[in-house]
């Protein structure tokens, strides 16, 4: 759905007031977990044990429960944790208090803060960040600020880093069906850093590029985990008068442009909806709705609507809510193929646990979608005293869930009067997003009484500083400014495990393109031939480049030489050394002419291949051959 959109159209995004920041979660490469001494491993076998828990909202500032939190609590979830003897202890079960913080993780986190030019805090305080979704058995995540107010270079400006915190990872979700959510305990407790940028990115493409850059800097540090789920990105998007929306779980960088674009779009559409409600004179005081239980009447009169019939068959309740004066608005498209009604449905799915779709239908839907026969619909409308432009929304399920759902419809309409409700949204690859949960504010943070404050000494800071070498940003600068490497080659070069060799080659004036050709393109080719060029030592490769530089071999021969070396298991240096006494050009010339005549393909590599077959251990007069070929080509 994102074709033909220029995600880098600065003018357009400035016009709509596009604002976006990133939260990058990166697991750290430590031996043990953050607050206990369990080893780190993802497991795929059957869990060894299970526990059942419930999460309960804590009291708010005013000594009451937040309405939404309480609603979520009423349609309560059975939270099941699947645990593994190997990687879970009673700490992860929330049955043992935390142990002192893993110093290895702390030092890596400090190092990462320095990489992003953050002020490292003088004394760290562990905080608890509440999560009611069950993803952490305690009901909160232990998290601590390590760095503040940093920055990273991007293009010709700085992207500001708001903060970097060290946190324990949450559980992996296995399933979420109805009132039961299942989690897996292996990932729980793995140390990770959360890097939060300011909303400094101006277009969706910039968001993607900065996300990529953050990942690159982290990878170059060598202190982070790689693999599926080791790096997770949340993207925050807002427009003026909209709100900061957190898009969770963006699994691939390439999804970012569409996701951020359509989120900004959704917010502008919701602002249009707000205006429309104002025009219709609907506000919190005037808004009227009416809920009716349709179950008894439907049982009596035998409904002919498919959804209702099935619901009654399963002994579920069918209820409906009339929304006074809201006719037409539920069909408003917020994202391509995603209407306001879909948005409400998403919220009901999560909060009321009604996850069989469709979970709502309404009178503004075309009849082929709601499947309620006209006569029946008229009856219901009459019952409600329906007048245009009203709309009736139906839902069905267990009584408590239906009550929650209809109340949620009402709440969502009230939210629409304010524009864009704060929430976290789940990312889908096609660029659309769906409700995940209400966005919790800073009030969900409180101190962890299980930990003493911990000072970060100047000595520790200095020690870590001293050990930081060859950061991505430093090398990027060096490669770009001093070694004159084209921008697109810098990242692969700097991230390569052969970076020291590459730097050496560049310092001895080897062309970046040649390095790319051999160490990347040719190596990829060799790997496809099931050979392992990674086993060749840097010193051997240095000799290879030297031979090219002195003209002992031709670039177009390299592929074959490497292949021979790897296949025969003979050291590259031996092959190169064998090429001793040079063949004279006049000896080669007739051969060349013959080959050139015979072969219609005047491919250089073929020519060298044939010459090499003829003179397997001689050095070829490469300079003369090339001059001769050039002169022929010139004619």
């Amino acid at each position, binding site marked *: 759905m994102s074709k033909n959109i220029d995600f880098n159209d600065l003018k357009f995004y400035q016009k709509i007031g596009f604002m976006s920041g990133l939260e990058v979660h990166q697991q750290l490469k430590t031996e043990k977990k953050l607050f206990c001494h369990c080893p780190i491993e993802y497991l795929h076998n059957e869990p060894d044990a299970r526990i*059942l828990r419930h999460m309960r909202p*804590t009291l708010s500032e005013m000594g009451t429960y937040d309405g939404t939190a309480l609603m979520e609590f009423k349609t309560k979830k059975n939270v099941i944790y699947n645990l593994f003897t190997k990687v879970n202890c009673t700490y992860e079960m929330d049955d043992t208090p935390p142990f002192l913080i893993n110093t290895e993780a702390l030092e890596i986190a400090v190092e990462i803060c320095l990489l992003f030019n953050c002020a490292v805090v003088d004394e760290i305080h562990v905080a608890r960040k509440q999560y009611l979704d069950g993803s952490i058995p305690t009901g909160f995540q232990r998290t601590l600020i390590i760095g503040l107010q940093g920055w990273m270079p991007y293009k010709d400006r700085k992207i500001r880093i708001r903060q970097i*915190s060290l946190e324990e990872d949450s559980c992996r979700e296995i399933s979420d069906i109805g009132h039961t959510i299942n989690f897996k305990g292996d990932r729980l407790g793995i140390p990770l850093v959360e890097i939060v940028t300011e909303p400094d990115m101006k277009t969706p493409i910039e968001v993607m590029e900065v996300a990529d850059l953050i990942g690159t800097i982290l990878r170059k540090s060598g202190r982070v985990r790689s693999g599926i789920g080791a790096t997770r990105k949340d993207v925050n998007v807002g427009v003026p008068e909209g709100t900061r929306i957190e898009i969770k779980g963006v699994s691939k960088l390439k999804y970012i442009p569409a996701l951020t674009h359509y989120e900004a779009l959704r917010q502008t559409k919701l602002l249009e909806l707000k205006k429309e409600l104002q025009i219709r004179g609907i506000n919190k005081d005037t808004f009227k709705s009416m809920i009716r239980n349709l179950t008894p009447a439907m049982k009596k009169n035998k409904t002919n609507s498919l959804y209702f019939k099935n619901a009654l068959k399963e002994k579920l309740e069918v209820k409906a809510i009339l929304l006074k004066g809201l006719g037409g608005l539920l069909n408003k498209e917020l994202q391509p193929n995603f209407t306001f009604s879909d948005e409400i449905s998403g919220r009901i799915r999560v909060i009321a646990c009604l996850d069989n779709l469709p979970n709502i239908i309404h009178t503004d839907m075309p009849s082929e979608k709601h499947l309620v026969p006209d006569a029946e619909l008229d009856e219901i409308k009459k019952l409600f005293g329906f007048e245009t432009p009203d709309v009736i929304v139906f839902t069905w399920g267990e009584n408590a869930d239906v009550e929650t759902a209809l109340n949620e419809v009402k709440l969502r309409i009230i939210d629409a009067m304010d524009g864009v409700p704060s929430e976290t949204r789940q990312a889908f690859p096609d660029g659309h997003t769906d409700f995940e949960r209400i966005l919790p504010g800073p009030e969900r943070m409180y101190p962890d009484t299980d930990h003493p*404050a911990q000072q970060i000494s100047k000595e520790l800071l200095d020690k870590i500083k001293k050990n930081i070498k060859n950061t991505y940003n430093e090398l990027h600068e060096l490669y770009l400014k001093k070694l004159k490497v084209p921008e697109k080659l810098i990242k692969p070069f700097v991230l390569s495990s052969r970076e020291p060799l590459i730097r050496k080659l560049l310092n001895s004036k080897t062309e970046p393109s040649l390095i790319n050709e051999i160490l990347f393109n040719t190596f990829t080719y060799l790997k496809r031939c099931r050979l392992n060029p990674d086993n060749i030592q840097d010193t051997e490769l240095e000799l290879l480049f030297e031979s090219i530089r002195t003209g002992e071999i031709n670039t177009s021969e390299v592929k074959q030489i490497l292949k021979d070396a790897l296949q025969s298991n003979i050291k590259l240096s031996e092959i190169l050394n064998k090429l001793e006494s040079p063949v004279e050009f006049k000896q080669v010339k007739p051969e060349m002419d013959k080959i050139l005549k015979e072969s219609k393909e005047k491919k250089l590599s073929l020519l060298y291949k044939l010459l090499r077959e003829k003179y397997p251990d001689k050095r070829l007069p490469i300079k003369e051959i090339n001059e001769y070929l050039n002169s022929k080509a010139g004619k």
Partner: protein
Amino acid sequence: MNNTDNFKGYKEDVIKVLKKFNARVWSDIEIETNKGTFTGVVLPRSETAPDGYLVVKLITGYNIGIDVNNIINMKETGFKEAHYKIPESEFPVDENKPNVTLLGTGGTIASRLDYRTGAVIPAFSPGELYGAVPELADLANLKTIKLFGVFSENMGPEQWITTAKAIGDEVRNGVAGIVIGHGTDTMHHTAGILSFMVQNSPVPIIMVGSQRSSDRPSSDAAFNLRCAVYSAAHGDIAEVLVCMFGPTSEKYNLLHRGTRVRKMHSSTRNTFRTIGDLPVAMVDPEKLTPIKTDYKKRRKDKDIKIDTEYNDRVAMVYYYPDMKPDIIDSLIDNGYKGIIIAGTGLGHVNKPLYPALKRAKEKGISVFMTVQTLWGFAQMYVYDTGRDLMELGVVPAGNMLPEVAYVKLGWVLGHTTDRDKVVEMMLKPVAGEITEREPENGYLIFQGGTPEISEFLKKNFR
């Protein structure tokens, strides 16, 4: 507000800096440091934390400590003192519901957070509790009495006696049941002594606490409280019982007899276990299912007997190899009237203690033997050592738990110091503290890692 309140928990170095910039605890503050400028609220500091760091809650909700040596300037932009109080909403009264009295001894059963400062504020009055656990109103009408506010390790005879008397008063007032909020560490000591001081209760007396504080979503407090209030209001078991999680999963609570229960893990939710017998019942907020049948049933009368005589010259000695007799001697010399020994195996101590034990007997000190294995009986006629010890006046206390024997001996000595009478009272069970038999499933400590238990754990909630 006085001066110390302005600098709550801070010491010299920080106070100097705060004074210099006219800032104080609860200031909304802008702090310029050589690492950057931060805004937030100045929080009090823990008394035990080192000097030199100022704790600031940032607007993101995170707290950080700032080395005062790094501070260049501070500007107070506002001030709002935190008042740690929970607004109350009235606990609904329903004439058709039973009346339950909650006695508070300390520790927090329910609480709420102060979001500005992150502090945890305990909730206790019915109105506060209703705010925290509204489901309680579905179970009973609640009255609360705060007896004292002490940590559970500071509970002692004085508090036990006050609690027992309060129970007597409330029962005579006609309540349907008593709930006692208590810290978990010494809950089994208190449960034990209340089983002796409170006799013939016509209503349930339920002790409850929490292993995970109630300021967290995963807390066991609300569920424990609901189960306890249900047991007190609707249960049929008129005994002193401890009501805590059965499994670590939030599935049901167990009601443990006050004289047979013990805290067995320093932190798990299901830490309380009945030792050497079966729990009396399972309970959840909707129903109570008896496991045992020999419990005392609820009655309509108010004929409760409160007997709080207590002599605190009692000690408990946990035997270890190579124990020297001077341990016992010092108790004798310090005027102790009763000693409970937690002996090895069936109830043994080493020979070097014999002269000291003999001396104790001569001084009229009552010495009883319990087992440090917790499960099983002191059976001192099996080996010579046991027979020797009995000769020296050490009396085996059956399968009475050491802590229960300790509080019972204090209670018995409050009534008589006549050694024969003491022995007679100690060995005559009052509330199930000694049982005639340990049922076959009375001892179950399964061992993890064995195939059958691994299989069991895969199939059942822990």
